[in-house]
């Protein structure tokens, strides 16, 4: 009997279960670890609900975005407390439904967050890959540029960039994205420095693969885990930063609802109409918290050793 014949299954019951189960990939194991992380699942659920709210905001909101009440209408519409006249979260100083504004605000905040993280992660990864893989003067230039950018706090850097570009929602996305680049670039550079010395990279180089192909096909997949974790955690930071810019009047244009700018407008009435600032503030807090819970779960799923070590 050959060895192969011995391994040939005869019947399902006779098989060694360990032998039958196909080996799990690293991604499958990460997937399972993520779903075991209850906080992450809860965070993801909340994030999905918020995302659905953002996508279907126009259906969910009970009044149009550009609502304008006349002087007489305002007398009965302004500053209604929550659960009054069908207003779940009350109304603001110009009679608009706070719930509708909060729901529409999620669209702006999530859009800014995703775009900013997208810009930062793509550009940061490319710079980091190039610096780590090529080394030499490329590494020197990229690393020194990163050092300079890291010398400034992210939000301050974003405000400086906005000052140069001019304040607007699109520019806020760009500014936050640019401000986030050095973080990604530094992480990816470090991971690439380690990966480029691995045997399979030398082998790929030996068989004449191009540098671009090596970087994208062999190194990038191996540095993807920290990038994904950073992106998730960075999303929460970007949403917070976007709200901060909105609070400073540097993001969305009126009358576009945006959580930060709504907070700024309503703070003057905090002790009289608490619901406007409270619900907008709670929306920011819940969104950021859910994103961070997902990020935490992803980190444990993709990098369990680091997570255990961190604990």
């Amino acid at each position, binding site marked *: 009997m050959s060895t192969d014949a011995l391994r040939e299954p005869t019947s399902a019951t006779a098989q060694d279960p360990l032998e039958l189960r196909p080996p799990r990939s690293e991604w499958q194991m990460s997937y399972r670890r993520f779903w075991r992380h209850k906080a992450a699942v809860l965070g993801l659920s909340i994030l999905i609900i918020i995302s659905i709210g953002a996508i279907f905001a126009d259906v969910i909101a009970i009044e149009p975005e*550009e*609502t*304008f*009440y*006349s*002087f007489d209408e*305002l*007398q009965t519409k*302004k*500053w209604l407390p929550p659960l009054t006249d069908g207003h779940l979260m009350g109304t603001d*100083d*110009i009679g608009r439904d706070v719930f509708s504004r909060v729901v529409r605000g999620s669209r702006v905040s999530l859009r800014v967050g995703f775009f900013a993280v997208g810009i930062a992660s793509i550009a940061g990864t490319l710079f980091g890959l190039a610096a780590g893989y090529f080394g030499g003067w490329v590494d020197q230039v990229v690393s020194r540029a990163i050092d300079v950018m*890291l010398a400034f706090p992210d939000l301050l850097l974003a405000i400086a960039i906005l000052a140069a570009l*001019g*304040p*607007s929602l699109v520019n806020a996305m760009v500014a936050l994205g640019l401000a986030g680049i050095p*973080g990604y670039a*530094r*992480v990816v550079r*470090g991971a690439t420095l380690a990966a480029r010395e691995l045997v399979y990279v030398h082998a790929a180089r030996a068989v004449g693969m191009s540098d671009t192909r090596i970087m994208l096909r062999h190194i990038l997949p191996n540095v993807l885990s*920290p990038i994904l*974790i*950073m992106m998730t*955690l*960075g999303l*929460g*930071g970007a949403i*917070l930063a976007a709200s901060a810019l909105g609070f400073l*009047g*540097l993001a969305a*244009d*009126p*009358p576009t609802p945006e959580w930060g700018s709504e907070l700024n*407008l309503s*703070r*003057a*009435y*905090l*002790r*009289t*109409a*608490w*619901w406007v*600032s*409270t*619900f907008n*503030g*709670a929306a*920011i*807090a*819940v969104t*950021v*918290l859910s994103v*961070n819970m997902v*990020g*935490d779960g992803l*980190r444990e799923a993709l*990098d369990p050793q*680091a997570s255990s070590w*961190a604990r």
Partner: protein
Amino acid sequence: MSSRGLVTRRKVMRGGLAALAGGVGAAALAACGEAEVVEKTVTVTVTEVKEVIKEVPVEVPVTKEVEVERVVVKEVPVETIKEVPVETIKEVEVEKVVEKEVIKEVFVEKVVVEEKLIERAKELVPGINIFSYPEVIPLGPYNPTVGGEVSYPTFGNANSYHPLRAASRASVEIGNMIHEPLYVLGAGNDFAPLLAAGSEVQDDRTQWRIRLRNDVVFHNDEPFNADTVISNFEEIFDESIVRGGIVGFANELNKVEKVDDFTVDFFTKIPNALFHKPLTRGYRPWPLVAKEMGEDFDFNPIGTGPFKFESWTDNVELVGSRFDKYAWAPWYSANQGPAYADRAVGKVLSNDSTARINAMEAGEVSFLLHFVFPHVQRISTNPSFRVLGILNEGMPQYMPINTQLFPTDDVEVRRAMIEGIDRRTVTVRANGGVPPVVVSNCLTSEAVKGYNPEVNNLYTFDVQKAQARLDAAGWTLGDDGFRYNSDGELLEIVFPDTGFPVRELFKLDVEKSLGISVQIPKMEGSTFNEQMQNGAFHAAYVGVGGPDGDVLWDRFHTSVYGLPGRAYSRWMYTDPPGEATPGVELDALLDGARVEFDESKRIDLWQRASHIIMDNALMIPFVTEFLSWIANTDIVGGNLYVGNFALPIWSDWYDKRVG
């Protein structure tokens, strides 16, 4: 994972939790602090404003009479005035008889208007005591006690307490416990002498003789006299010294000469009937010793005010101690002697309205200005606080329209904007969520000398009429809801966003009601000013103040084009920027008013200027606002004088906690 990644995550987590905690805390705080609305009886005070009797009725004889005046004042030497043909004099006398008949009607109308305004205010803001402007308001029974401390708030840091360089709000507002002007603005919007004893203008009307009080001394015992004024103006004229806004006043003068120890002559470049105005705020005397002190004087000031400088903590407070020799309070102050309180504290508060109201409720300050009206209902239930609203009719908020930029170069577009914008609603957020009581139709309104009731009726809020006006002017509504002309050009205006809370409702209203597209680029103050001066925008939202129609000169005279904060309408303006168009009708009227020494004729000229401005729709007047005050009557007693540009009269306040 890099350490940076971990740190970022923690920050984010902390941020999220902090925001959640903040939200919950805010909810709890508000739930605890929410007070039921208590209706209070509001005392209605209707004041007979005598100047209105004079200013309003001139409407009938205006056209005939002033045309004669213009020729006389502008082109004929002063002496010639006495030689005006007898026929003209007779004409004036006949018209004066007519004036008397009109007076009663207008006066009654004025009283009715004020009653209506106050009643309306009571409805809109229950719990507030509404007063007309200007007014002396007792804070309660007058039982002064000596000692203790009174405090008054301001916001923004002080750049200097040297009157030569003072430019910030704090420098003037709380600095006036130390420094005093020669004149103050008193009841009836008339100028009353303070450090001056009186004045007369000489025959050529460019020489003003100011008599000074002879009993005034500075805090360092240095006497105040003509030498002081001469020395001060040597510094004001000295271009090698760093000077503040007082330079503007100096530019109007040729020289200042001493006549005797307590008399000074000011020589103006052109006749100026409004010479007293810069003497109320622009010039506040400082002692000779300031020259030796140099820049040390900026924050170690010496003045003649009721309190001597004690200390200044940057961005926190200015502290003064009682000046026992003080005996020259404004005539309308109940206390003519030294201040009652031992100490006066000018507090620099945050610009945030909630923080200010918290400081007030914590007893950090005796007064609060410019509070947000939504707080009124809660605050007015507290028996310690007296909530006051002063109908500040002289300071409408307005929007100048650039008349040289397409499409607002079309007068019909400008007129449609005045008629079609729901001005009362658009400004509701700018006025703390409370719909303003008075919709203004001109820069000079009601209590301002120069108010023209006829102008007030030029436009009424009528959206259909505004839309029809645009239709007739060739601006047709497109499928996208916006208007286009026959060349397919979009009817769009650019309105800079400087953070003023009127922008959002303005855009919504103008786009929805009139089909005019509104672009709102964001920008900070200095960029806005620079671009506005260059005529880059169609409109902006600004405010203006002043006791008389001279505010029109400040905003519409072509000679001020290109200066910060001025004349954005650019009407009848020629390139290159900065050059005025000579001889235009509006300039002539405004110049004429400045050199017209007869008040009724001066008012007439302002009224005609108002008519031109509004007929050509050079600006959109919005609303007049409240001056809002709260006094903590557990802490402070005395009177509130809102006439003197709302500056505090420190010596008449006393600390009720003493004794």
